[in-house]
């Protein structure tokens, strides 16, 4: 029985002990949802409370949490997400990754807001929640299958294609540190959370349900939905550009600004980028547009490779990030290879950003003579070799040979193995590689990358304000507060959970009324804008304290040497760089705005008390 005052939630999370094969319900309380909302906020609180500091992310002592937020399963536009949360084997800190599609809504209709997976099974298993009934089933016959095949096999085994499945591929089983989880065709992509499931021998989670999500006042809800859908339909980004080209439109946009990572970020202007552009993709690959649950933007593209070696390969995508990482970063513009590479990343179960950036890193190491044929198993790794992309994804996903094992550790650990100064161009922060948005070309975003609790994530801060000219991109003044406010917008929307892409509606520079009204309409909370911002700040500080407890401090809020010492070489952003002095200046601004200690980057006692996190002050004092 749901004892919550608030609507929008089912009121319970399924807690599964994989070690002994038992489960129980974890009931949500008013206090928990008031303070942490759901999704990333609630998961951070649970994991802070339940994980010992220093726990090995790939040990049974880590926990993996699938979680929704209050708006998921309703018709709030872009509320299609589900989140996965754990201590990351890439970053050794709290990590959250979310995916669109339909899994999140279905999980709630099946009777749960989320699932906590703890311990580890001895043999492969999958979890099946069917209309509130829970089963832990043997998955030995599914172990080894790719993430697409396993979903087909399970649909057949369970007798319905209406069941929504989140599954790992061989990379998760092989504990590749950037293994992902695939839901349908969408990825819980970053942070290696697929390896956490693999370490627990969980091959998949399947959900089916016909329940519903209750809201306090359906009439008010309908009025709000009418207004929001009208805004989506009126805004050029959500009504015209996303449906037509999706995220790949950014290839030409970013390259025109000289902010498109190329050859492992040795430059940010790629003269052959047209071959990778959204316009080329539309003509060459796209067969139809797709929507996630409850989203009018239709930004997802269903593509089929029409000719050549990869003829017939179909994929939902590729997205801009795939094109950046598997194409431009590796020095080629073969869009067919990118599409096939993205499909292979999904099937084998690796994060396509990390995969492409890892290959690019290895190519630069090889060209500079830091690794040789011995480390590459005889492969001549050079930028532009599009024929290597698919074989190398296979090798890393299956940990084959010296090179496969090196790449499977992610760029940070690979650079530690290679040494010889390769850390300078290991394009990562805190273990997570940089996605396809410029740090050097956008100082505020560079600060967001540096301070991101997930490392170099483009969803802790966002590039949008500087890229669209809402703020000046050629200045470091004011970027501390600018970045902190965007952090808060992102973490609140990640806790509700709604997609970030319709940023013009949600923000994009701060939490707006549109966000708060969605939250209030679904839950019956009566949050003011200021209260919502305070809630977001509380969650951000909660997550910071998780990182602090794992040893992260100011010195880890940084950028790779390349971004701080090598200006962009060519194109319209030529000369732009984020020097150490510039970063330090912005960090001071950021910590000061946040009320954190400037020397250490640790939240002060006063700040934690102000945010209702008094129980963390002792941890902060005992560091």
């Amino acid at each position, binding site marked *: 029985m749901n004892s919550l005052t608030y609507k929008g939630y089912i009121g319970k999370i399924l807690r599964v002990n994989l070690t002994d094969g038992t489960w129980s319900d974890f009931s949500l309380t008013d206090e928990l949802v008031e303070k942490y909302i759901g999704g990333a906020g609630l998961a951070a609180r649970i994991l802070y409370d339940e994980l010992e500091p220093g726990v090995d992310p790939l040990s049974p002592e880590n926990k993996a949490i699938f979680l929704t937020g209050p708006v998921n399963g309703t018709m709030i536009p872009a509320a299609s997400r589900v989140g996965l949360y754990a201590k990351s084997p890439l970053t050794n800190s709290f990590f959250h990754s979310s995916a669109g599609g339909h899994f999140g809504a279905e999980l709630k209709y099946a009777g749960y807001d989320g699932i906590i997976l703890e311990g580890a099974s001895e043999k492969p298993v999958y979890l099946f929640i069917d209309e509130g009934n829970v089963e832990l089933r043997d998955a030995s016959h599914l172990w080894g299958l790719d993430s697409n095949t396993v979903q087909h096999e399970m649909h057949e085994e369970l007798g319905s294609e209406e069941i929504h499945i989140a599954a790992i591929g061989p990379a998760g089983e092989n504990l590749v540190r950037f293994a992902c989880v695939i839901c349908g065709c969408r990825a819980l992509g970053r942070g290696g959370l697929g390896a956490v499931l693999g370490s627990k021998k969980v091959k998949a989670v399947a959900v089916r349900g016909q329940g519903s999500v209750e809201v306090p006042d359906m009439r008010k809800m309908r009025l709000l939905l009418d207004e929001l859908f009208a805004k989506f339909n*009126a805004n050029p*980004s*959500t009504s015209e550009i996303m449906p037509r080209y999706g995220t790949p439109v950014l290839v030409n*946009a970013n390259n025109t600004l000289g902010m498109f990572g190329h050859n492992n970020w040795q430059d940010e202007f790629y003269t052959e980028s047209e071959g990778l552009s959204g316009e080329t993709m539309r003509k060459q690959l796209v067969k139809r547009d797709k929507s996630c649950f409850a989203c009018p933007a239709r930004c997802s593209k269903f593509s089929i490779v029409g000719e050549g070696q990869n003829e017939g390969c179909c994929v939902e995508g590729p997205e801009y990030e795939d094109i950046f990482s598997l194409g431009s970063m590796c020095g080629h513009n073969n869009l067919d290879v990118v599409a096939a590479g993205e499909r292979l990343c999904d099937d084998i179960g690796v994060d396509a950003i990390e995969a492409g950036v890892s290959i690019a890193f290895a190519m630069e190491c090889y060209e500079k003579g830091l690794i040789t044929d011995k480390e590459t198993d005889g492969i001549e790794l050079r930028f532009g070799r599009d024929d290597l992309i698919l074989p190398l994804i296979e090798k890393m996903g299956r940990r084959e040979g010296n090179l496969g094992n090196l790449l499977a550790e992610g760029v940070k650990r690979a650079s530690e193995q290679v040494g010889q100064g390769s850390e300078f161009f290991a394009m990562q922060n805190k273990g997570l590689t940089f996605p396809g948005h410029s740090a050097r070309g956008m100082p505020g975003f560079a600060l967001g990358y540096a301070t991101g609790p997930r490392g170099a994530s483009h969803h802790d801060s966002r590039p949008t304000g500087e890229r669209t*000219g809402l703020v000046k991109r050629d200045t470091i003044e004011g970027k501390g507060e600018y970045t902190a406010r965007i952090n808060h917008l992102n973490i609140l929307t990640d806790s509700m959970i709604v997609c970030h892409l319709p940023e013009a509606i949600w923000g994009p520079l701060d939490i707006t009324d549109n966000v708060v009204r969605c939250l209030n309409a679904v839950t019956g909370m009566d949050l003011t804008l200021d209260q919502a911002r305070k809630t977001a700040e509380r969650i951000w500080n909660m997550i910071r304290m998780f990182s602090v407890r794992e040893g992260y401090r100011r010195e880890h809020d940084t950028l790779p040497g390349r971004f701080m010492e090598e200006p962009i070489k060519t194109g*319209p952003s030529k000369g732009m760089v984020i020097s150490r002095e510039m970063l330090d200046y912005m960090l001071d601004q950021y910590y000061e705005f946040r009320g954190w200690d400037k020397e250490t980057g640790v939240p002060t006692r006063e700040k934690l008390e102000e945010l209702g996190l008094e129980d963390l002050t002792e941890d902060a004092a005992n560091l």
Partner: protein
Amino acid sequence: MKITIKSFANIRDVLGQAELPMELAPRATLTDLFTRLNSEYGENFNRQVYDQLSGELVPFLILINDKTYRTTVDMDTPLSDGDVVTIMIPFDGG
């Protein structure tokens, strides 16, 4: 004076070509350019850059000869003969 408009994605689709030559009155501004495009290409162009509820030009960047200008504050910028004006797309997300 003569300028060249460079565009891509939806705006290129509407203008029909990646590089479009255009004749404008001397000292025409960015606002004058957008008024002209709005007038020549009508709703098809309007929907790509103006919010259809507020009627306002949404935030995005414009390059004049590779120098960046912002629609939020720079629309009074005068153009010069021979300028190459690149219209970025108003895309959030990514």
